[in-house]
């Protein structure tokens, strides 16, 4: 303890006397710290995004759609694929209660919505309450559709309000019409309080029971694989069928499924295929889009990116460590005489080793603290200024980074310190 204290005192004196040399060596370590903190933050944010992905979108996702492309079948024997109906969805759900979500969905394009004399073009989606179980990245005002709406085929609907509605001035309006025919709808929903009021869609009167407000871009969950969502009007699938928005004879629904436990995904997939086979006499009529694979690929890519950054951090520390080693070695040679003098008056090999190690560890410590400060500045205010979004830097990151910096310096000082301690006192004293 006493020896450590003495070594620290000598070390501080040395660091102060050789300012330039000290600055250079702890800068090297500081760079390592900055990169390390950044990579820590990347890893943590990847983990956070993974959690969010699980929470918001789920992992074991798949989508069942009708498959028209039956290339392997003989044209004479071609049978058009059977339709997926609301009943199919309900039956799948009751046969396989383990599935977390079975959300049937149908989309109608170019509908006309009339509100207080204004007419806009929109799309309308027939859904069930299951729709809200996943990717519900909205703030709900009023209520969402419920099973009673479905059973009674009620004429109720929920409107989606854009976080950033398109500008409503005339020039952009005409220009926008060419590629965004629903822009007028977004403007209408943004500028009117329509909750509780009635609208006419293709002549059918609906009551607006809920408004889904899109979250502002900064509040939207940072997902590994965000779903493209472009909904305008949601209404009970049964109501839309009843009022002729689609015809179950000709139109097929899509089924968005979350199988629940991702570890049983393969099994769930088999059960679903089996269900389709039994119900329709074959599963070749349907396309099952395995989204879990895609999501997992995206997760893998994120994890790989984290590993790359952490290796960069390691590399930066390595470079810093080599810098410390180089400088400590140079110091040992420059101070050989001093080593001899200290040995002559009674310093042991251990005392000499400790002196150089403590000195290097101090450089590492200063570099780590400096680097952590810089890393924080870069990760939060600078990144925000550059519009890159602040890194999620937690208090333990700089702390760990400082420890690693000091430890790196310690490890790389071992060899030079050993060189110093191995000098024979007589030889060390003879140098000039």
């Amino acid at each position, binding site marked *: 303890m006493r020896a450590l204290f003495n070594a620290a005192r000598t070390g501080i004196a040395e660091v102060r006397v050789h300012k330039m040399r000290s600055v250079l060596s702890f800068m090297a370590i500081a760079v390592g710290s900055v990169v390390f903190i950044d990579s820590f933050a990347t890893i943590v944010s990847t983990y956070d995004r993974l959690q969010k992905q699980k929470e918001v979108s789920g992992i074991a996702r798949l989508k069942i759609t009708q498959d028209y492309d039956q290339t392997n079948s003989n044209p004479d024997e071609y049978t058009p694929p059977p339709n997926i109906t609301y009943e199919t969805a309900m039956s799948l759900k009751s046969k396989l209660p383990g599935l977390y979500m079975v959300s049937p969905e149908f989309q109608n394009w170019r509908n006309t919505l009339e509100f207080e004399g204004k007419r806009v073009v929109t799309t309308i989606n027939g859904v069930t309450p299951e729709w809200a179980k996943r990717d519900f990245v909205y703030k709900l005002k009023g209520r969402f559709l419920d099973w009673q709406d479905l059973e009674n085929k009620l004429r109720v609907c929920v409107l989606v309000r854009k976080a950033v509605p398109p500008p409503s001035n005339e020039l952009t309006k005409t220009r926008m019409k060419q590629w965004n025919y629903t822009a007028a709808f977004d403007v209408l929903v943004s500028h009117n309080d329509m909750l509780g009021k009635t609208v006419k869609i293709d002549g059918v009167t609906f009551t607006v029971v809920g408004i889904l407000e899109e979250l502002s871009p900064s509040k939207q969950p940072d997902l590994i694989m965000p779903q493209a969502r472009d909904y305008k009007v949601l209404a009970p699938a049964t109501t839309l069928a009843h009022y002729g928005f689609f015809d179950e004879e000709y139109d097929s629904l899509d089924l968005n499924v979350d199988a629940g436990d991702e570890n049983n995904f393969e099994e769930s997939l088999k059960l679903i295929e089996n269900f389709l086979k039994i119900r329709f006499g074959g599963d070749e009529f349907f396309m099952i889009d395995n989204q879990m694979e895609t999501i997992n690929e995206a997760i893998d890519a994120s994890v790989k990116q984290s590993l790359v950054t952490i290796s960069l951090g390691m590399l930066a520390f390595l470079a810093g460590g080599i810098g410390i080693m180089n400088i400590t070695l140079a110091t040992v040679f420059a101070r050989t005489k*001093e080593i001899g003098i200290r040995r002559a008056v009674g310093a042991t090999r251990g005392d000499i080793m400790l002196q150089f190690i403590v000195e290097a560890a101090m450089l590492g410590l200063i570099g780590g603290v400096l680097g952590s400060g810089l890393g924080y500045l870069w990760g939060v205010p600078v990144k925000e200024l550059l519009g890159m979004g602040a890194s999620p830097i937690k208090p333990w990151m700089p702390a760990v980074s400082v420890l690693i910096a000091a430890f790196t310096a310690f490890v790389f000082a071992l060899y030079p310190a050993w060189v110093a301690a191995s000098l024979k006192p007589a030889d060390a004293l003879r140098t000039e």
Partner: protein
Amino acid sequence: MSISCSDLSKTYEGGHAGWPALRGVSFEIKPGEFVAVTGPSGCGKSTLLNILGLLDEPSGGRYLLNGRSILEMSDGERSDFRRDELGFIFQSFNLLNRLPAADNVCLPMMYAGIPRAEMHHRAHELLAKVGLKGKEKKTPLELSGGERQRVAIARALANAPKILLADEPTGNLDSASSREIMDALLKLHAEGITVIMVTHDRELAARAQRNLRMKDGRLEE
């Protein structure tokens, strides 16, 4: 503390390999003696003193320090011996020029673990004893050669050693300063410390109790 050497030899690795610096040196020094080692340049005086001071190891022969063979000592034990029982004075002073005189004197005490306050008190006492009162804060670069050598003597005395080893302590000093240093060493001898001094100066050597004359790595008598 007694010194007993028999048939000491030393051959340096590298350099003039195979040309021994010491070839069979035997002698004894009793506690409290003042011995001068003399001889022409290159005859092995410094080599002998380094071995006696545990700064270097002999290639052959036996060296008993207070009855113990130094070859049996660990590096730590040798360091402790240097720290507690031996004091060194060199021709080129060998002070740490960055540190003030007092801190130089403190160095051996620091390794002995003496508390700070006591250490500084003793350093000031020792510097006063060698006539450097008021110069405690000066660094060696701000002192004359004679003053530097007196700082070195104060440092050598820090842990109250029993043996003082001086390698041409007056080699870099004028005759007046040399005399002062010699007087100081004689005074320490009078206090009971064993003094072993290498010197070229016949006059100084004559003031020692005993002379060991060396030539080509051997003792002449």
